[in-house]
C-alpha cells in the first residue's frame, strides 16, 4: 500500500519553570497557539487534536474537557497517556492521525503543571505510581525500616537503582555522570525555554552538590517544571506549502517491556538488570527499519534523549545504537556528545534541565524538529542535521518511544 508522508510544520512551547501566573488551560493554549502560529494554520484548518499529560500530577481529570475550547474545541480530541513517555506517545498519536489518512492537519499538545501539586517536586505523581503496591506491601506486614529505606534511599524512584546497574554494566564512574549533567546544564543555558539553566557549568560544580542517594547527586537530578509543548503535523502537500523546511517523521515505534521494577501489587517480574532496556533496543531497531535507516551511527546526526538522570543519556544512547553497549562514556570523554561534537546529545539541555513530565517526551520530538528546520536558535547544532532521533522513556522503566525525523520524506 501507499504510505502517507507526514511532517511537522510548526512547533510551540511555553517557557518552563514555575508558572504561577497562568492556569493549566492558559498554559496549554499558549503552547498550542505558538505551534499553530509557527505552522501558519488557524484552528479552523486543524482537523483534530491529540493531547496528553500525567493526570495524577495536576489533580485534574481529562483537562482538555475544560480547556479544549482555548485551542480548538469543538473538534475531534484524542487523549493518550502513557506515563513518562506521554509526550512521545502524544506525538506518535499525532503522526498516526495524519498517516492514517483520517486527518490532514493535526495538533498535538502535551503538558504538566507540577506546581499545582501541594507536595514538593514531582512526589505526588511519582509516589502514586507505587502507591497501590506500597499499600499492599504494608498490609502484608512489610517492616517500617523497609518502608523508610524505600522512601529515603530510593527517593528518586527506580532511577538510582538503574544508575547502579548501569555503572556496573558499563564501568562508568560518578565523574561521568557529573560530566553529562554539566554538559546538559550548559546546553540548557542556550535554550530560552529551559527551566534550569547554568552557564559555564563544570563537572566540578556538579560534584560539589550533595547526594540524593548514591550514586546520584542533587546536581544530577531534573527539576519539576511547569510547561507545555505542541507540534502541528501535516500531510505531504500541505506540509510543503506551509513550511519552508518541514521536519519529516520517518518513523515511530514504542515497544513495551515487562515492568522492570515490580509488577502489579508487588508480584515478581523476570527482569534483573534495569539497564538492559530491551524495549528501547527493539523500539530503536523497528524505528530505524521503518525509516529505512541502515547504519544509525552514520545516518543519525543528533539525538534528543529522555534523561531525567545523567546515566540515562549514556545508557539510552547505547540502546538507540548510537554507541556500543557500555561505551558511551568514552564518547562523552572524547567530547563527541557535545553540541559541536560528532553526535550531539540533548543540545536543548534535555529532561535533566526541564521536566514537565507529560510534555518532556514531546519536547524531544519538538527539539529534533527545530534542529532539522534550523529553528533551534542558540542551541542549533553547528552541523547540518539530516536525520535525528527523538526518544522518550517511562513507565516502570519499561516504556520507550522512538521517533526518527528527517529533512526529507521517507522514500
Amino acid at each position, binding site marked *: 500500500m501507499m504510505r502517507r508522508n507526514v511532517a511537522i510544520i510548526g512547533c510551540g512551547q511555553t517557557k518552563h519553570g514555575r508558572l504561577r501566573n497562568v492556569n493549566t488551560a492558559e498554559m496549554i493554549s499558549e503552547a498550542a497557539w505558538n505551534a499553530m502560529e509557527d505552522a501558519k494554520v488557524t484552528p479552523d484548518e486543524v482537523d483534530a487534536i491529540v493531547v496528553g499529560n500525567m493526570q495524577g500530577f495536576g489533580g485534574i481529570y481529562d483537562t482538555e474537557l475544560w480547556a479544549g475550547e482555548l485551542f480548538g474545541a469543538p473538534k475531534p480530541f484524542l487523549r493518550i497517556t502513557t506515563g513518562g513517555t506521554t509526550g512521545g506517545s502524544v506525538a506518535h498519536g499525532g503522526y498516526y492521525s495524519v498517516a492514517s489518512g483520517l486527518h490532514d492537519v493535526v495538533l498535538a499538545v502535551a503538558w504538566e503543571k507540577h506546581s*499545582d501539586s501541594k507536595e514538593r517536586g514531582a512526589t505526588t505523581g511519582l509516589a502514586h505510581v507505587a502507591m497501590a503496591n506500597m499499600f499492599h506491601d504494608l498490609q502484608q506486614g512489610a517492616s517500617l525500616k523497609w518502608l523508610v529505606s524505600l522512601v529515603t534511599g530510593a527517593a528518586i524512584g527506580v532511577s538510582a537503582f538503574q544508575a547502579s546497574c548501569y555503572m556496573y554494566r558499563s564501568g562508568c564512574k560518578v565523574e561521568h555522570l557529573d560530566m553529562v549533567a554539566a554538559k546538559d546544564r550548559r546546553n540548557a543555558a542556550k535554550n530560552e525555554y529551559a527551566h534550569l539553566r547554568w552557564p559555564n557549568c563544570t563537572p566540578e560544580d556538579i560534584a560539589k552538590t550533595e547526594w540524593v542517594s548514591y550514586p546520584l547527586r542533587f546536581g544530577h537530578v531534573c527539576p519539576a517544571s511547569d510547561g507545555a509543548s505542541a507540534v502541528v503535523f501535516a500531510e505531504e502537500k500541505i506540509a510543503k506549502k506551509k513550511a519552508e523546511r518541514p521536519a519529516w517523521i520517518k518513523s515511530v515505534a514504542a515497544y513495551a517491556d515487562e515492568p522492570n521494577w515490580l509488577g502489579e501489587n508487588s508480584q515478581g517480574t523476570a527482569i534483573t538488570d534495569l539497564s538492559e532496556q530491551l524495549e528501547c533496543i527493539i523500539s530503536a531497531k523497528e524505528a530505524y527499519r521503518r525509516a529505512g535507516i541502515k547504519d544509525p551511527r552514520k545516518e543519525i546526526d543528533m539525538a534528543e534523549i529522555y534523561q531525567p538522570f545523567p546515566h540515562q543519556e549514556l545508557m539510552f544512547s547505547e540502546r538507540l545504537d548510537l554507541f556500543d553497549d557500555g561505551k558511551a562514556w568514552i564518547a562523552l570523554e572524547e567530547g563527541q556528545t557535545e553540541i559541536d561534537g560528532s553526535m550531539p546529545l540533548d543540545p536543548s539541555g534535555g529532561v535533566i534541565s526541564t521536566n514537565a513530565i507529560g510534555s518532556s517526551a514531546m519536547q524531544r520530538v519538538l527539539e529534533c524538529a527545530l534542529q532539522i528546520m534550523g529553528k533551534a536558535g542558540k542551541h542549533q547544532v553547528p552541523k547540518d542535521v539530516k536525520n535525528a532521533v527523538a526518544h522518550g522513556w517511562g513507565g516502570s522503566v519499561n516504556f520507550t518511544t522512538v521517533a526518527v525525523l528527517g529533512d526529507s520524506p521517507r522514500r
Partner: protein
Amino acid sequence: MEKREVIKVTGLPIVAGFRWSVGKMMEKFIKSFADKKIIAAKCPKCGYTYVPPRSRCGKCYTKIEEKNLVELSGKGTLTGYTTAYVELDGKGIFLDLDNPKVIGAIKLDDSDSTIFMPLGEIDQKNVKEGIKVKVVWKEETKGEIADILYFKPAR
C-alpha cells in the same frame, strides 16, 4: 483455580493536595467579589461574553484581554435546575441530604455562559425555568469564591 482468590487492599489515609493557580483573568474575577462585583470577558470580535472570564474565545478563537472585561449586574435568568437529594462525600459515596438543595443553571444578564450555582430563599414549587434571579453575597466579602452564597428570585 482456587489459588486465584482476591483480597482487598485499603490504603493509608493519604490525600493528594492541589493548589491550582487561577491565572490573571480568574484572579480579577475572584478578587472583584470583594466589591460584590461579577465580571465577565467579552470577546472583542464576536461579542460572546464568558463568565467566569477566559483568555481566548472558544467560538471565534480571538484573544481576550483584560481590557475586554465587563461588569455584570448580578442578575440573570434561570435556564435549568435540579433538586439534589444526595451529594458526594468526596470519597465517591452519595450521601442522602436531609434538606434537598436546588442547583440552578443561570444565564447572567449580558453574558452568554451558563453558570451552575446554588439557589436559595425559594420554595421548590416556585423553581421554574425563565424566572429572574440575582446573586446573594455574604455580608462581609473577602474576594474569594465563597463570597457568593447563592442566587435567589429577583422579585
